[in-house]
């Protein structure tokens, strides 16, 4: 990393915001290590959220997925899987914490606005103004099979429905004037509802809105509607800067002041005491995440067939994939990509690097986040926020429940020494921690 001069920094006084992203389902949470605790036990969540709050994290963030992933008709069995309902778990955590924000990922395709807005508002009141909603729009008939009304929605319509859904929720949250509720009556292409809300406003008025989605439509939706974008651009600085600039451009185009939408990419952070230890630990993390079985499974997704019989230390399959597109409906990675093109590219990379099948997957998975000593990381993360590449990070711990310990005990103090991290919570609401203005409909 080159150390930039102060003049390169567009936001020289910016501080790093941290959230913890508990994914619940993934192959990046190491479950094979003896230190790895239960993914569902309440004690796991309590330890994580308390550590995060001790480290003055802005938010504790739960992901959501409404059907277990499958591959070729069989439930995928290699990943950490099984998680609590986000809003229910966060209500419990609200009872055990005092400051940290509580973010629930909730889908706009398989929920009803009257019901979801009420649940979110309830969490917001119970937590004293610490609730947030990460608006996701994943839709497919396959997930819809778990729902009463199927839930199939044309892909092109999902952001339209999401916008109407959020608008309806905002009307629910705005219906309380301090004394009584105004009935909400919505009739549009997606909803025909009429009801009187029952939950009053919290100290932060509305739950904070996060958005996760990367397409141009998703970015426009975020910059018209949300307070925070949760992005995948949390590894490569140039890529992150380009994304954040795009969000700033779109925010202004949406008629909002620049900086009105924060960018918090998801990332992984590996901390160790010396450079040699950093390298060793990062390698260990990677190899635990990409087991031989996982490597075969990931390659199998691209080739569209079961490759578990192959030798992970041998070469990639010599034949072409049996599929053209990677199936987008079963929760596969790289869904929608052209399988043959991807396979060709992978073979070229493997040939050039002399990689075995597993080494190839390790190579592609190695760019997952940051690794360094606390002081290196503090310099680097401070540079990210001060150069405008992001406003902070949503950290996915690679180990639970202890995976935040070294970040809170070592990295946070190093950032504080540089004046790049708060020394106390800015207030009691999530909106205050993030320095957000009033909700969009209440300005």
């Amino acid at each position, binding site marked *: 990393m080159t150390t930039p001069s102060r003049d390169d920094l567009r936001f020289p006084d910016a501080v790093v915001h941290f959230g913890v992203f508990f994914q619940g389902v993934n192959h990046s949470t190491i479950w094979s290590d003896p230190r790895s605790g239960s993914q569902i036990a309440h004690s796991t969540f309590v330890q994580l959220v308390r550590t995060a709050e001790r480290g003055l994290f802005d938010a504790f963030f739960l992901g959501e997925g409404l059907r277990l992933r499958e591959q070729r008709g069989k*439930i995928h*069995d290699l990943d950490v899987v099984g998680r609590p309902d986000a809003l229910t778990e966060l209500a419990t955590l609200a009872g055990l914490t005092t400051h940290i924000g509580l973010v629930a990922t909730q889908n706009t395709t398989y929920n009803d606005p009257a*019901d979801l807005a009420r649940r979110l508002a309830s969490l917001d009141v*119970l937590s004293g103004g610490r609730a947030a909603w990460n608006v996701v729009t994943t839709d497919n008939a396959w997930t819809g099979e778990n729902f009463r009304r199927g839930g199939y929605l044309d892909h092109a319509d999902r952001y339209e429905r999401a916008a109407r859904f959020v608008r309806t929720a905002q009307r629910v949250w705005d219906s309380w004037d301090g004394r009584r509720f105004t009935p909400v009556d919505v009739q549009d292409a997606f909803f025909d509802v009429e009801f009187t809300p029952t939950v009053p406003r919290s100290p932060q008025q509305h739950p904070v809105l996060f958005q996760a989605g990367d397409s141009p439509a998703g970015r426009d939706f975020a910059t018209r509607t949300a307070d925070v974008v949760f992005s995948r651009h949390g590894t490569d600085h140039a890529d992150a800067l380009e994304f954040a600039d795009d969000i700033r451009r779109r925010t202004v185009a949406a008629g909002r002041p620049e900086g009105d939408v924060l960018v918090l990419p998801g990332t992984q952070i590996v901390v160790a005491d010396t450079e040699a230890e950093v390298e060793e630990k990062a390698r260990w993390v990677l190899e635990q995440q990409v087991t031989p079985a996982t490597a075969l499974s990931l390659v199998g997704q691209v080739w569209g067939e079961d490759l578990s019989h192959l030798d992970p230390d041998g070469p990639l399959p010599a034949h072409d994939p049996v599929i053209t597109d990677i199936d987008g409906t079963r929760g596969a990675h790289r869904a929608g990509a052209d399988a043959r093109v991807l396979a060709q590219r992978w073979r070229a990379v493997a040939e050039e690097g002399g990689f075995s099948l597993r080494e190839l997957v390790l190579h592609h998975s190695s760019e997952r986040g940051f690794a360094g000593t606390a002081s290196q990381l503090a310099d680097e993360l401070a540079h990210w926020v001060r150069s405008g590449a992001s406003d902070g990070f949503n950290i996915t711990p690679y180990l639970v429940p202890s995976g935040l310990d070294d970040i809170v005990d070592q990295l946070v103090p190093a950032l504080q020494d540089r004046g790049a991290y708060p020394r106390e919570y800015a207030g009691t609401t999530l909106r205050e921690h993030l320095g957000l203005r009033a909700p969009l409909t209440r300005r």
Partner: protein
Amino acid sequence: MTTPVHLFLDVDGGGWHPAAWRWSRSTPDEVFSPGRLRGFAVTAQAHGLTGLTFEDSPLPDPRNPAGHLDAVQRAAFLAGTTEAVGLLPVAATTYSEPFHVAAQIASLDHSSAGRAGWIATTSPAAAARGVGLPVAQDPAGELADVVHAVRALWDSWEDDAVVRDVATGRYVDRDRLHHVDVDTGRWSVKGPLTVPRSPQGHAVVVVQEDDLRHRADRSTADVVLSGDAGARRSPGGPLVVLDVEVVLDTDAHPAVDRLAALEARAPAPDRGRIRWAGSGQALAAWLADLAGVVDGVRLHAAVLDEDLSTLLRTTFPALRAARVLQPPLPGATLRTTLGLERPANRYATGPALVRTGGDPR
């Protein structure tokens, strides 16, 4: 040993009487305060109550003109800071997504270490407008179908589905995860649930007697709430809990005067529950007599702020002295406290294979 009578207390809003809020010491804002909820939980645990119930409705409730919060959220809020009392929220079945309800209640069971109950109720027809669905023709039938689907989803993970088998790289055993394939003709659910099987296997399912169409449906419920003063416990059947609206003597006013004053403000509708007025001691004597006749009683206070203090000063201590309460032990599941079995998993086929590890509970 005498058969215990399990006590439940409902803590929604200002109390069961629609005029309660006028007498409440709580301002409308305080009715929602997290601190007030915590107070109820501390009280319930200290006095040996078996559970708190959280009534709910998606529509405005005349008893709580200032509104009310989602019941599952309120129950979950108390799960981490209590260790003995059962937590039983209402989650209606008529217009809900069974998948969401199953996930929410299973999560409550995880975070409360097995103290979750679920009061499965029907919704008024007007609730259909809020979710943009047609009015349900047969809400009781819908309820039975939804409970069936939810119970199937709760079984969709066998208890030992998480195997963490380092040798093969498998986190779960896919043979111990099941599609439920429930199809009612009106809707279907595929499964499995996204939440692993919870400590109780199934949360305790509570249904109002009025919501059960005929006797065959009684298997839907672990506990039936009855407003019939002649109700009797039936060995082998679901537990019977009497639903009782109480209005009690206070230092300042006899119960009958309080009730008359409340009724003068806003007459209470008949909710099909027993209504009981009198002194806290007389209530205790009546409840003690019910031990062995029914399995439990759910108390609704006319004005929570006033009647609860009478319950605390007179009724609960008298019941403890008479040894008819059986306070839940810290760490016990609600099923254990109630003497209900942990349901076997409908999909479980046989003894577990040799495992290298498991998800610690």
